[in-house]
């Protein structure tokens, strides 16, 4: 036991000496929190939409005003790519695609001639809408917005021929204002607290290998498990400081509050930070140099935490064989735990599986790292 603590103490002392590592430990997570928290918004606002109105009546003008009334879509000027001499690739010149080709609008609306007169006479009139679907998600947002405002316009102008017999009262739970920050900020804490603690511990472990100081450890009486646990303790303590910084930033900047059961969140956080550190140690034992360790963390840890954790889009959307990997990713469980704690307000019993899954991940990583350590020790000694 004493050997474990002295190993941990040595680790902390070494950590405090290197300025770049210190900046990496505390400055980078803060920068990352700012960037992920503020610069991740899936749903566009102020979407530019160009309108071409061939009608001269008042009704069409009112309709256009209604489309832009709720502020999600904003009116963009209609430009046609007139000079087409550079390429032949621009498919249509003066068609309804012009503003989309130029990238000046995300959708175009064309209102046909005689629109107002026809509708006043009770005849249907087609409005042509073309949406730039390169951004699939926002193409859906724009479509829904136009259909919804058209429906509202018909009702408010008493033009609807259909009485709405069935209506729905939709209540949005947990996030009635649909603020994306509530979704993004808790998830971002999980991604950041996965990447940076494991980066530090991977560096520490591979440094021992690179500088050959690991041979001294082999020669001492410390066992491989003690070595891994000692290092894990030290870096989990550092990870706690990182967690404090990142989570308080998220609370201060994005207005999230702890609404769930605090006890289970604390347990989940502890186990999660430990598993992140252990993953780093695991990578560190595999890598032969510090730069190789950084690259392994960047390619395996970074991308998987970002893409397979459910941080951006729901987990159920991930294609089948790939979706299996999600189940062994600690970050995936902590994204859930953190949304439970800060948005959903879940109680203790409904999420007991999260710390359990995290603990299994941590245990597997601990065993894995010490195994590799011991094998290296033996082959190195023989």
């Amino acid at each position, binding site marked *: 036991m004493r050997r474990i603590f002295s190993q941990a103490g040595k680790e902390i002392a070494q950590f405090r000496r290197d300025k*770049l590592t210190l900046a990496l430990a505390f400055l*980078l997570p803060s920068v990352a929190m700012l*960037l992920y928290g*503020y*610069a*991740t*918004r*899936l749903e*566009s*606002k*102020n*979407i530019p939409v160009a309108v071409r109105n061939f009608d001269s009546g008042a009704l069409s003008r009112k309709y256009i005003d209604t489309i832009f009334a709720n502020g999600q879509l904003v009116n963009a000027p209609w430009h046609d*790519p007139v*000079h087409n001499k*550079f*390429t032949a*690739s*621009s498919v249509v010149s003066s068609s309804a695609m012009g503003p989309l*080709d130029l*990238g000046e609008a995300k959708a175009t*609306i064309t209102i046909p001639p005689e629109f107002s007169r026809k509708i006043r006479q009770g005849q*249907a009139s*087609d*409005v042509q809408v073309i949406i730039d*679907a390169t951004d*699939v*998600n*926002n*193409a859906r947002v724009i*479509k*829904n917005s136009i*259909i*919804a405002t*058209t*429906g509202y316009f*018909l009702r408010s102008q008493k033009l*609807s021929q*259909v*009485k709405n017999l*069935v*209506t*729905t*009262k*939709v*209540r*949005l*739970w*947990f996030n009635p204002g649909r603020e994306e920050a*509530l*979704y993004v900020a808790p998830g971002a804490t999980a991604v950041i607290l996965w990447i940076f603690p494991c980066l530090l511990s991977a560096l520490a472990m591979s440094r021992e290998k690179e500088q050959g100081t690991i041979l001294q450890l082999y020669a001492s009486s410390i066992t491989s498990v003690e070595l891994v646990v000692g290092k894990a303790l030290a870096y989990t303590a550092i990870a706690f400081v990182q967690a404090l910084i990142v989570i308080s930033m998220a609370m201060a900047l994005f207005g999230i509050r702890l609404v769930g059961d605090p006890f289970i969140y604390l347990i989940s956080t502890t186990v999660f930070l430990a598993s992140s550190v252990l993953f780093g140690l695991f990578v560190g034992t595999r890598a032969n140099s*510090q*730069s190789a360790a950084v*690259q392994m963390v960047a*390619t395996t840890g970074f991308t998987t935490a970002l893409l397979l954790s459910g941080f951006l889009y*729901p987990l159920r959307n991930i294609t089948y064989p*790939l979706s299996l990997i999600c189940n062994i990713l600690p970050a995936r469980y902590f994204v859930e735990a953190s949304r*439970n704690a800060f948005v*959903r307000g*879940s109680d203790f019993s*409904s999420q007991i599986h999260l710390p359990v899954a995290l603990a299994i991940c941590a245990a597997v990583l601990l065993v894995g790292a010490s195994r590799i350590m011991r094998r290296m020790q033996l082959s190195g000694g023989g």
Partner: protein
Amino acid sequence: MSSYRRNYRHQIRALIVKELRQIMRDKQLIFLLFFMPVLQLFLYGFALSPDVDHLRLGVIDHAASPTSREAIAALVENGVFDLTAAGGTEATLAKNVRDGNLEAGLIVPPEFEREIKHGTTTSMQVMLDGVDANTAGIANGYISQIISTFNRQLVTGSQISRELISPQISFAYNPGLISSWFFVPGVIALVLNLVSTLVSSAAVIREKDSGTLEQLLMTPVNSLQILLAKIIPLSMLLMITVLVCLLISSLVFHVPFRGNIFLFLFVSFLAILVGIAIGIALAAFSQNQRQSLLTSFFVNLPVIQLSGAVAPLESIPEFFQFLSLFDPLRYYVTCVRAIILKGAGLEAIWPDVLALAAFAVILLALSTSKFGRQLA
């Protein structure tokens, strides 16, 4: 004079051959150049999908009438919702939504059928999990569209009857709304930037690390030649990386290539130069590879996050929008999407190409002069 020139070219050619041999021997560099881009493309292409479908729906139908069953069937029909739980009490339904076991809950009131028969408006209660604000918003839109179609059917007896204004909506460039068509071009840009930065800093710092840089300087070549001999082979190899990415994009993800391939290769070349310049700067400012790799985190994180490769930039706060103007990757992402998906030509993307070119020139000038000064 002419013999000096010939000499100069000979020296560079010799250095380029040396560089290429060194790169081909370096497993780490080969991994970065060819395997990492492929890996990332696959991950992003298959993992990121904003589709809103198969949401788990729980239903309590107090009316249990033909019309209420039709309404529920209408909601489930096109795959937006999957009927996962039916019956039970309102409390258990609410708990299932609260615990995240269901994304939506629907309660049909007992008076549903009676009120419709009397021609009065009846109201169904829907609870929607709002944690994922984006999905909830789109799902909410779908619900109201489904219900309004249902109403038309209920009143007029046919689905085809239409309102006076019905927008004829079509999706341009990606009519099937395939999400990988959005992400794959973005990731090509992201990966190319990442790889060119890492590879060039590794190639420069390696000489610094092992002290071979001084040896090179003792030979008759100057520092500009050394750098040119690094930039030329690397940019050639990175152009191959671009082609590999493009091949995967069309063979695996079936993303159409609608633009001009030469324009695409030209802007990619500019982006590669930007990446190489950033890499050289990283190497110039660091003492060893560990330091340059760690510093690269500070550069790559904002560059990627503010580029719009993964999430759109339109709705981020104004200050961050302003910051993104200084992100060279942002312009490349715009170019790649516009060329690949929209078939855009120079007349549409020239401001972005110009910005990218400016970044390439400025960053290359800054990083080579910093490197040169260090050697002098």
